[in-house]
């Protein structure tokens, strides 16, 4: 991407979100132990269709944070559902826009929940990938928006 003389690999934004999502209300997700964080993210992001470079940006941002907890609950938000946190308008309209946000919270123990199905990116034509995430604290229900990277390819 060229911005005058400067070239970037992605656009970046970050904000404290006002529109919170209640992670305790989600119906699907995963439980991930700290020593399985990297292999879990590699597996799911590969399923989602992210390249290894995009995966590295995602994993080096989130894995050291998730690694600090013995057990995490993870839920992904995809595409239109991400509009609840931020709407994204691109002109000219891309052929495919794919958005994936990770919501995660430290948990003490597993509870019953269905495993989530991962939606895969369609990368044909002018493709836009946005990834981001939000750290939650399930018990205190505090929401803080931590980061989103966006990637134009």
């Amino acid at each position, binding site marked *: 991407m060229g911005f005058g003389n400067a*070239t*970037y690999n992605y656009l970046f934004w*970050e904000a404290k979100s006002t529109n919170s999502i209640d992670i305790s209300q989600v119906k699907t997700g995963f439980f991930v132990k700290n020593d399985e964080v*990297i292999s879990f993210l590699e597996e799911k992001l590969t399923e989602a269709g992210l390249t290894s470079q995009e995966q590295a940006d995602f994993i*080096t941002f989130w894995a*050291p944070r998730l690694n600090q907890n013995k057990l995490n609950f993870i839920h992904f938000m995809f595409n239109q559902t991400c509009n609840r946190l931020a709407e994204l308008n691109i002109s000219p309209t891309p052929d495919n826009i794919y958005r994936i946000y990770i919501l995660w919270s430290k948990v003490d123990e597993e509870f019953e929940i269905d495993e989530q199905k991962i939606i895969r990116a369609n990368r044909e034509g002018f493709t836009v990938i946005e990834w981001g995430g939000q750290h939650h604290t399930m018990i205190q229900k505090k929401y803080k928006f931590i980061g989103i990277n966006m990637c134009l390819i």
Partner: protein
Amino acid sequence: MKILIILFFATVSFTSTALEYKRLPSCYLLSDSLDTSLPSDSAMYTFEFNGLSEENTQLIYSSGTNTITYNFENEHTLKLILPSGKYKFEFYISGYDEIVTGKLEIQKQHHSTYRVQMEHQVFKGQMKKPVIYLYPKENLEVSVQLNIHGQDPFYYPEYKNSWSFTADPTGQLKFGESTYNYLFWEANMDAPKIDHNYGFMVEGDNTVTFLEEQLNLMGFTSKEQADFITFWGPQLTQNKLNYVNFIFNEACDEFAELSISPQPDNIFRVSMIWQPVNEPWELESPLMEKMNRNGFTVLEWGGMELPAIYDAAEI
């Protein structure tokens, strides 16, 4: 019957003393004796400080109400004559952990001698997100080894005694089927010693402009700058004012030694050390370095946040 009761009390008091000692290993009683040369309602404490060097000449102490600055004479010893009773002392010597004693009781005309063990203050920091970029002149098989002086390292991609991959001139690193733009590591380690007379005062709102300017001067490309700024920018922007300093090249060996084979023509390493501050103080411009990007070039950047400074007078 009377004897039995006394024994019982003795046991209780012994147990509570033992607990006290467990909690306070940094200050303990060496001796306690009667000294009739003292005024009848007074008592004397002697504190012998251990673990100091000759340049530690100043002690700040308090015994409850007021705080007093005391200059050691020949020995690292403090003598205090006080009315008998119970006192809680606080001792502070610059560069050492502060010591807060439990309540130390002293009887009339007694002389108690305590040993105070001072420990060097070492702040544990997190060396965050060092990333390593490699740009060979042509496609090249490279092996990178890190010797991290720290704990709980995190690596990406997976590190097995080294990283081995093929690098191309655009900076893409091929590990089998996977391609990466950089190598990543992170670890907990001792904070470096920083000379706070040198550095930069950076207002939170001015962070991005400041970093772009400094990283440009160092010779970062805009993509490398973006990786640096999107990582550190949001953290520094949260504070009104930050102290910022940079550590370059060989000095970064303190955090981790980096061995690369084959030997690159130029390696440039930079760590940004920063901390939130309440108010600015006078600073001299630090010596800044610029990278040489000729030939097989390697760039590593990382950084560490230090605890906030609330009072510039401490510096």
